[in-house]
């Protein structure tokens, strides 16, 4: 199966659980399971070539100019991680089906899970670091959804937010690091980067790149001091914890370090940063874990500790340590997933995860006891389980490591961590299962149904088998993976077996185990000491930092963006004037190449109207209604000017836009004070006036200068004129530009228009659901109300006008391709035709007789336009290529058809819907109870005088 498909399958499959949940929870779970299974099968097909040491690749140039290619590769390392992700994913899907309760939205859960799974598979299969970053951020986002799955729990929401903040910001640092790395090498392809160890390590940017990339890896893998998010993420449902914190999310950081190992490891900087962080994390996590009473918190900190262990091994930078790291990744994934699921079962069956309330469950839940004990003993590092093997290798490695000339520091601290690790593992077993049976469990515990224990049982079988026969079972896999990690060099000698003779590591293991038992015996005393110690609480610190940052950004925003529109305007205008002056004083201006035309009387009249209206607006702008009228004058003169200058399309558009905006503005004036108050001092007004006058004169001078000269470069108008009919099949160049040459722009514009209208609708909705609604309902009108607001004459006239206006709209629409007109103008005209009905008979009366929703109109418009564009693909042409031809139907004259016409239909519907939705939203502000009318007009003589027959009856 192609690597593309393996990475894409979880994303594609994510749709199904969300849809199939209507068919039941089993259907949703099976869909998720089947998707994962298919991807897993696809992966397994590649076993032969991976085991031969080949690298399977799939390449696709996505955005080559950015170096962002959708390249995937599958080598041993990617294979191991993909295998872990998919296999444990499959087990989690099974487990979650039985774990989640009836109230939990299971479709949503599986959809999130598959999204996350897809992102993880994407990370481990990427052969391009930019693509890897994309998937990396996707895991942050999808894990946010998963951790916050129980939206009703504040812990869940806070934990999710913290995880997103920490891993997301680490991801940002990593982007910078990756970009530096890519610039050093000159390629963003991993396979190229991995070949350039010498180049990278010699670069002066090696250290910044290393630190930034490690920030990403450390935040993701919960390394000290970023370890705090992981325990808080435990608020998620247990399947999520088991998945994210055993095999996937937190392993992504380890994966990245292993992936970059060939080029980044081997320097002092790498050793001291990575190994030290790992060591501290390992020790800290193990110590804290011992004193956690929440079962999942214990496991969370033990995860932190084990991640530290693996990080430390990778940090050593030796090949044999890399082998140990890889081996421990496999082992940790198996026993930790099993332990999380066990914890989930205990929680599910007893109703509590508090170790203080548990104990003595071994007889009540024998199966869970067996599973949990084996997994915990593996975590403690007891033979013959797999945890023993890798812990042994780790201890062996620490013995050979010197840290700042000290031979004892690393092994000593590692031993201490191993000791605590053994202690908390034993505590897990003894405080949950051993001891006396209690009477006060919240519910009656018993073993769960097979669906719940099957998944951890399978993992535990693996734990035992790998422990007993590791060389045969995982030996070849480890060899392949390690050779991928160390960059294809010769493998060091190692042997995966239980008995190595009496080595220092064996003595250390014995000490750790005995010490662990000893610590457990002293746990009560230790706990008292621990609780008495002052400890920094990570969550408090984190929230203080976040609060401070929020205040800072709010302060910056408030200072820069204080809501005074006139201030923004003056800054903008003054800055533009300054730029213009700079350009004028430093640039050169060409000679005048044109002669001014003699001024004619009609343009002069227009000019006087324009200037007069503008001055009038300035003078009367505090009277809002009057300034609206004057703005209308400006709009009309502009549209007349367009017509005079032979731009009928623009004139038509301008005039219809003018009408619609005027009506919308009049509607909103209804809710505003009639006067703009005086709120700025005289000095400020003079300053503003001076700046405006300078800006106006400058703009005028610029326009004059441009009109007196020919264009500096040839324009593209010639091309449009030459190709409009030949290529677009229309003689109206403006329309052909809109629907063909620049069709994609238009497509974007109608989408934006639709979004704008929907936002107006949404704003209306949200405003009307607040206390503003009661304010509006109690609003006093500005003026005394007038009777007969829907006069008969107006109603009759608009009814007569309606079909005529619609016909004009259709006429404008159909002629659009060859003569002035088109979908945009037609949409506005039809909108006006509807508006007239609203004005004549009132909004409530009209909307009750409305048979379609404007949201739908917008949607259909965009969809039709998109479908027209897609149609070109079926003819193997680029998106939105139009086609045209001629038809001759006998009674009619020969006429032209063009696919652009369909596109124009989309534009028409989107414009109509957007205008009407905006109007509709504004109208709803004015709604008052009792406003709905029974009749279209207030006074109807027919109603006053009943038909004569009835009168006669009455008389009789």
């Amino acid at each position, binding site marked *: 199966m192609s690597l593309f498909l393996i990475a894409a399958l979880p994303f594609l499959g994510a749709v199904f659980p969300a849809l199939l949940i209507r068919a039941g929870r089993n259907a949703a779970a099976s869909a998720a399971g089947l998707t994962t299974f298919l991807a897993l099968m696809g992966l397994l097909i590649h076993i032969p070539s991976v085991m031969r040491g080949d690298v399977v690749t799939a390449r696709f140039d996505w955005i080559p100019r950015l170096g962002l290619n959708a390249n995937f590769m599958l080598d041993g390392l990617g294979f191991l991680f993909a295998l872990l992700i998919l296999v444990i994913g499959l087990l989690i899907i099974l487990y979650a089906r039985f774990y989640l309760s009836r109230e939990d939205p299971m479709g949503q859960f599986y959809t999130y899970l598959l999204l996350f799974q897809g992102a993880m598979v994407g990370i481990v299969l990427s052969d391009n670091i930019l693509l890897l970053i994309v998937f990396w951020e996707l895991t942050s986002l999808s894990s946010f959804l998963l951790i916050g799955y129980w939206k009703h729990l504040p812990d869940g929401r806070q934990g999710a937010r913290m995880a997103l903040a920490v891993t997301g910001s680490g991801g940002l640092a990593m982007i910078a690091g990756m970009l530096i790395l890519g610039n050093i090498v000159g390629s963003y392809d991993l396979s190229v980067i991995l070949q350039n160890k010498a180049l990278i390590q010699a670069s002066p940017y090696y250290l910044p790149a290393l630190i930034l990339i490690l920030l990403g890896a450390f935040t993701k893998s919960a390394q000290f001091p970023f370890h705090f998010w992981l325990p808080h993420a435990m608020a998620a449902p247990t399947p999520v914890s088991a998945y994210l914190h055993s095999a996937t999310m937190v392993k992504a950081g380890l994966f990245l370090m292993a992936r970059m190992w060939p080029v980044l490891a081997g320097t002092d900087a790498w050793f001291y940063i990575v190994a030290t962080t790992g060591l501290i994390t390992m020790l800290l996590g193990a110590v804290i874990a011992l004193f956690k009473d929440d079962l999942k918190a214990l496991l969370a900190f033990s995860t932190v500790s084990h991640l530290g262990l693996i990080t430390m091994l990778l940090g050593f930078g030796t090949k044999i340590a890399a082998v140990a790291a890889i081996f421990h990744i496999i082992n940790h994934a198996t026993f930790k997933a099993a332990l999380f699921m066990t914890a989930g079962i205990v929680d599910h069956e007893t109703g509590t995860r508090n170790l203080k309330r548990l104990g003595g469950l071994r007889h009540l839940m024998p199966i869970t006891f067996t599973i949990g004990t084996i997994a915990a003993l593996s975590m403690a590092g007891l033979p013959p389980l797999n945890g023993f093997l890798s812990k042994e290798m780790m201890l062996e490695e620490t013995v050979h490591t010197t840290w700042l000339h000290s031979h004892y520091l690393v092994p000593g601290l590692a031993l201490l961590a191993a000791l605590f690790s053994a202690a908390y593992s034993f505590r897990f077993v003894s405080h949950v299962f051993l001891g006396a049976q209690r009477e006060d469990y919240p519910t009656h515990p018993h073993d769960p149904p097979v669906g719940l224990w099957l998944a951890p049982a399978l993992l535990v079988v693996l734990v035992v088998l790998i422990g007993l026969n590791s060389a045969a079972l995982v030996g070849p896999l480890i060899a392949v993976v390690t050779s991928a990690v160390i960059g294809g060099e010769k493998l060091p000698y190692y042997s995966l077996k239980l008995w190595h003779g009496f080595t220092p590591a064996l003595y250390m293991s014995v000490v750790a185990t005995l010490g662990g038992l000893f610590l457990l015996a002293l746990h009560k005393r230790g706990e008292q000491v621990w609780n008495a110690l002052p400890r920094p609480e990570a969550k408090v610190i984190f929230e203080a930092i976040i609060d401070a940052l929020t205040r800072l950004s709010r302060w910056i925003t408030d200072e820069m963006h204080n809501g005074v529109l006139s201030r923004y305007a003056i800054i903008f205008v003054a800055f533009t004037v300054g730029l213009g002056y700079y350009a004028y004083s430093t640039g050169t201006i060409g000679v005048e190449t044109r002669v001014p035309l003699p001024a004619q009387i009609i343009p002069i009249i227009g000019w006087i109207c324009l200037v007069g209206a503008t001055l009038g607006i300035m003078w009367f702008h505090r009277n809002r209604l009057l300034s609206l009228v004057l703005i209308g004058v400006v709009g009309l003169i502009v549209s007349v000017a367009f017509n005079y200058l032979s731009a009928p399309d623009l004139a038509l558009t301008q005039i219809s836009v003018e009408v619609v905006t005027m009506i919308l503005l009049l509607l909103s004036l209804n809710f505003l004070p009639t006067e703009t108050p005086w709120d700025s001092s005289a000095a400020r007004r003079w300053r503003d006036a001076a700046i405006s006058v300078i800006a106006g004169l400058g703009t005028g001078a610029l326009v004059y200068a441009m009109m007196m000269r020919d264009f500096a470069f040839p324009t593209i108008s010639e091309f449009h004129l030459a190709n409009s009919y030949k290529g677009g099949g229309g003689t109206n160049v403006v329309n052909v530009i809109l629907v063909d040459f620049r069709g994609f722009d238009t497509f974007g514009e109608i989408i934006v228009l639709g979004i704008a209208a929907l936002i107006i609708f949404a704003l209306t909705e949200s405003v009307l659901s607040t206390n503003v609604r009661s304010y509006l309902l109690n609003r006093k009108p500005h003026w005394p109300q007038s009777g007969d607001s829907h006069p008969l004459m*107006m109603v009759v006239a608009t009814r007569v006008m309606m079909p005529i206006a619609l016909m004009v709209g259709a006429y404008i629409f159909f002629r659009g391709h060859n003569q002035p007109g088109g979908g945009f103008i037609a949409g506005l005209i039809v909108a006006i035709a509807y508006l007239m009905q609203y004005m004549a008979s009132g909004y409530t009366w009209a909307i009750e007789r409305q048979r379609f929703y404007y949201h739908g109109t917008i949607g259909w418009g965009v969809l039709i336009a998109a479908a027209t564009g897609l149609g070109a693909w079926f003819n193997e042409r680029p998106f939105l290529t139009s086609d045209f031809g001629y038809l001759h139907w006998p009674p009619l004259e020969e006429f032209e058809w063009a696919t652009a016409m369909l596109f124009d239909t989309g534009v028409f519907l989107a414009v109509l819907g957007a205008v009407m939705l905006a109007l509709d939203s504004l109208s709803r502000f004015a709604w008052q109870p009792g406003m709905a009318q029974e009749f279209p007009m207030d006074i109807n003589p027919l109603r006053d005088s009943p038909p004569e027959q009835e009168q006669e009856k009455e008389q009789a």
Partner: protein
Amino acid sequence: MTFIAELLIAIFLIVSGIFGFVGSFGMIKLNDPMSRLHAPTKATTLGVGGVLLASITHSVLLEGKLSLHELLITLFLFLTAPITALFIAKWHIHRHELPSDLPDAGEDELWATHAVEQVEDVPDHSAN
């Protein structure tokens, strides 16, 4: 023939010019809104009508083809002019006349514009 046609067109244009001027002059000269309402009706009906007649005559007699666009313009004028006038009149009655100053409304107690229940305590903006 051409001369007669041109003469006819000229007469129509002059008539329209005169009425257009009279209408505009009336807008300035008359001082009461209700009287002023009469002035633009001259401009819209006879004034524009004259131009339209001149245009039809021009196309029929001089260009030799029938043009009906002018009839459409007439139709729209006849539809919109009365409504505009009605609204201006209603606005005037609403804002500037008291029910007691108006002529008797016949069977009804009040003219329709005034016949509405008022919201109490409407703020007074009439000074503006």
